[in-house]
């Protein structure tokens, strides 16, 4: 198989490049997932709020970020914002002129919009009886939220969150459009240098391994969480 030999050859010769690309991909995934999840909880609570001052902006945020391509979002932040002098003279300019923070901001905000919906679904799926039980034992709303509703919602939403993390892994491949050399970036650079797609195949194989690893990791986490429950 000359084709597989070529791919294996590209993988071994360019091993350090792929390793550093993998590092960037994992950094993008880990940071944006953590920030996105942290933002998702207040967004979900705001969307569920009966106060329109909270629910309307949160709903608009979800529609804006889920209704436009991620590529456009990255370009608006990285190429678009420097159009304004205010941005270029501000304190955050050292961050916004660098592609890595820009990609992280775009990925995190995007992740927050998608997982916000997932967390909202999880909160809605918590049985009303558990909420009532929490208030019956005298928990106030904040305590019930922290001890009962959010942990239950998290467990209910876990399979859907697993999907979102896999989608987020694939979304990070757009980092190469703002000059970052992630896994896809390494493959693209090799393709441009050698006029062959072998580097892209290597990157694809690594993504597939990562996808399966994430799915497996979440299944283990689910099993662990369920093991702690008495039946």
């Amino acid at each position: 198989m000359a084709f597989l030999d070529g791919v294996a050859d590209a993988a071994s010769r360019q091993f350090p490049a792929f390793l550093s690309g993998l590092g960037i991909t994992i950094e993008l995934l880990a940071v944006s997932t953590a920030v996105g999840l942290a933002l998702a909880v207040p967004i979900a609570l705001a969307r569920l709020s009966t106060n329109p001052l909270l629910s309307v902006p949160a709903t608009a945020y979800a529609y804006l970020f889920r209704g436009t391509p991620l590529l456009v979002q990255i370009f608006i932040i990285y190429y678009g914002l420097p159009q304004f002098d205010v941005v270029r003279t501000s304190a955050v300019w050292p961050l916004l002129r660098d592609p890595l923070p820009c990609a992280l901001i775009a990925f995190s905000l995007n992740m927050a919009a998608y997982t916000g919906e997932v967390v909202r679904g999880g909160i809605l799926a918590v049985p009303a009886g558990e909420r009532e039980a929490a208030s019956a034992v005298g928990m106030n709303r904040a305590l019930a939220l922290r001890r009962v509703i959010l942990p239950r919602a998290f467990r209910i939403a876990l399979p859907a969150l697993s999907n979102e993390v896999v989608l987020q892994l694939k979304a990070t491949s757009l980092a190469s459009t703002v000059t970052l050399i992630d896994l896809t970036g390494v493959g693209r650079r090799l393709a441009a240098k050698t006029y062959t797609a072998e580097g892209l195949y290597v990157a694809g194989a690594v993504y597939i391994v990562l996808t399966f690893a994430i799915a497996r990791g979440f299944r283990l986490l689910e099993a662990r969480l369920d093991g702690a429950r008495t039946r």
Partner: protein
Amino acid sequence: MLDLSGFGWQLLAGAAVTLEVAFLSLAFGVALGIAGAAAKLSPLAWIRVPATLLTNLVRGVPEFLLLLIVYFSLPDILSGLLGTDVSIGPLAGGVLALSVVFGAYASETFRGGFAAVPKGQIEAARAFGMPRARIFVRIHLPQAWRYALPGISNLWQTLLKDTSLVSVLGLEEIMRKADIAAQVTKRPFDFYVAAALIYLAFVLLSGPAFAWAERRANRGLARAA
């Protein structure tokens, strides 16, 4: 507000190309999805196993990477097979890659749809003496379509947004037009926001269109709630 300095028509021309890519990919993608679902439900292992493996592989790779792979390696593969030089343009490459992605996800949606068709209906059709192909076209497909539509609606919205990736190949759709205008006018923010608003409009308009399609697919059906 946004200053498009004469590039507004260019963006609209790009929007037409975006819709062209999206509709072509939808058509091929739905066809691939139905074929993929039929293959995954096949009793023959040599059809079922490769189909399942292939769709799982496609779903494990970023759409953007798959687009690059198709665009950069397909001409070589086709040239090798046909013995002559073959080149594919960004439109063909983009539609092909997006159709394959759509088809891989849609095959799962349709598989669920086919599985949801009550067995009794198939048996009734067989009892009437319908040949297998007609059972598929008259009983299986219209019913599976009904169950699959909400999933297809979600996939369509993803597809609309993914068409922006084809701009990387140089196809002059919305994103590429916005790139060009941004470089000429030095107003990238205005043009990328304008592009975002066009995508948002397309996504928001798809909602009612699919609601209509669902009503149509479900007409004559008793509703439980």
